[in-house]
């Protein structure tokens, strides 16, 4: 019995609408027939309903403002829609979306750097003083200090302390070695400890 249950949960078939729907059902603890998802659009909507909020929150902690975070996540879903046929395994959908979101956030930062040369109108970040969204001053200062870290360090720290990902998974998400994750996190924590020494 145990083996049968394990094999069902560890199924690694090609990415099909029904397959991802099965995965979603497992994630949600539901036992629904697999044929209810008719096409990719419907399937992706299902994933959005399940993981959309958490992905927008991940994007928010990386880019700082809600509208941009939503845009990044929508683009990630469009990417998933286009590449659904190429997704090698069912259980890669969420991992794919996370990678897309992290890459999308990286592009936003790159675009913001380029936009320093011309006026920009993106929303103030949640950790900026003018946003006044974060009630807790300590959290605001912490995220402000994080925003001054190099890009990769920000990503490692967010994945580690927001999503609680293990280092091996962070390495796979960012496409870097575990050693890099470990030392990047170590350097980032040292830098944050220095920057936030009055709060510690």
């Amino acid at each position, binding site marked *: 019995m145990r083996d049968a249950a394990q094999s069902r949960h560890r199924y690694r078939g090609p990415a099909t609408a029904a397959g991802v729907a099965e995965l979603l059902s497992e994630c949600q603890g539901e036992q629904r027939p697999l044929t209810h998802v008719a096409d*990719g*659009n419907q399937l*992706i*909507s299902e994933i*959005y*309903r399940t993981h*959309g*909020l958490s992905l*927008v*929150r991940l994007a*928010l*902690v990386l880019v700082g403002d*809600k509208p941009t*975070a*939503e845009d990044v996540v*929508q683009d990630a*879903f*469009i990417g998933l*829609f*286009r590449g659904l046929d190429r997704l090698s395994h069912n259980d890669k959908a969420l991992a794919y979306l996370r990678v897309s979101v992290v890459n999308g956030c990286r592009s936003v930062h790159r675009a913001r750097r380029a936009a320093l040369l011309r006026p920009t109108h993106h929303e103030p970040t*949640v*950790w900026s003083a003018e946003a006044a969204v*974060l*009630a*807790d001053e*300590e*959290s*605001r200062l*912490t*995220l402000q200090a*994080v925003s001054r*870290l*190099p890009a*990769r*360090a920000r990503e490692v*720290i*967010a994945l580690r*302390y*927001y999503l609680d990902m293990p280092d091996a998974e962070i390495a796979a998400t*960012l*496409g*870097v*070695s*575990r*050693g*890099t994750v*470990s*030392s*990047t996190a*170590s*350097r980032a*924590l*040292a*830098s*944050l*400890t*220095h920057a*936030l020494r009055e*709060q*510690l």
Partner: protein
Amino acid sequence: MSAIEDLLRKAYADAAQTVTPADIAPELPALGVRAERAQHSPRRLTISLLAPIATAVVVVVAAVAISRLASRPDIAPPAPGPTSSATASTGQQTPPPFFAALSQSGKSIQILSASTGRLLARLAPSAKGQFFSGVAATGKDGRTLLVAVEWGGCKTRFFKSVLSAAGKPGALHPAGIPVIDGILPDSTFTATPDGSAVAFADYFCDGSGSLVVDHPRTGRLVSWATDAGDRFVSISLSADGSAVGISGYEYAGLGPGAEPGTSSTRQSPVAAVLRSSPQEPVLDGQGVVVRQYSVVRLSPDDKTLYVCAKQGDQDRLDAYNVATKKLQRVVSSWASSTGNCVFTLDPAGQYALIAEADGHVSRLNLGTGKLTPLLAAGFSFSSLLTW
């Protein structure tokens, strides 16, 4: 869990809570239509039309730049700095012609000219899923690179590659250093100039770790067990491998066998010099030169510890006398990068190469403190340089 980790978790949770389910669209718009539009949008069309033109412009500009660079003679080798006992002992007056930089992702090692800074070649791991986690220049003219490769799962293997006279790397061959069941955080791998000893900090798959000085030719191996929570930031060997300079964090004042602390306030930054002696089995307050978060390099004669640390918006390089633990002098300072100081010494200990905030590399005369920017900036930011 440390205080800073608690702060981060709370801050992220607070930020995440600013987005509620009601804030986001309950459904995605019809993705097929959006994807189709995105593929055929005027912006993409413009980009697809402009791309060949832009490429042509880039090629022309690059060709002109390369021809100018090629016609420009390399800077003459630097004038020798102050003579030191290290210089005499290694017999090496002219710094090696190349230096190597480990990319932050671990996906490549760049080989660059030490006189112009020009990128000469890149070395890539032999298979997908492998990453470089360390590089050290050894051998005549620093042309034998010892590299550590993170080998899937939780293994690290060591290889060597010999550079041609033009700086092109040869194939990777086993370096004769035993495989370890652990990973090396980058910037914590080093070797003596003659390759007779290597040193690294490894973190084993079970969470434990150690600092190792391995003499592969003689089979002599010295290792220090570390307390959970000890972290190495940099490691450096003397020319004969008998002393190792380290920087990082240790659990200060807890003594051997202590339980890991529960707060980062119990961790203490440290820069120290350890002697390769089995009588010193545990890293706990031994050989501390200065308690400062830093990146260190040990002079070849192990008499001076070069300590680079942030001072405001500058990276500052200090020289400490290892015997007296006194600051001898401030060697130099430069605009700080966002990460740790990135610098390395030449085998004779006369010069350093440093990575500056804007991404270019400069040569620093350790005797005079004079900084000479290298001409080309083909360098992408790295966590480890070796010369």
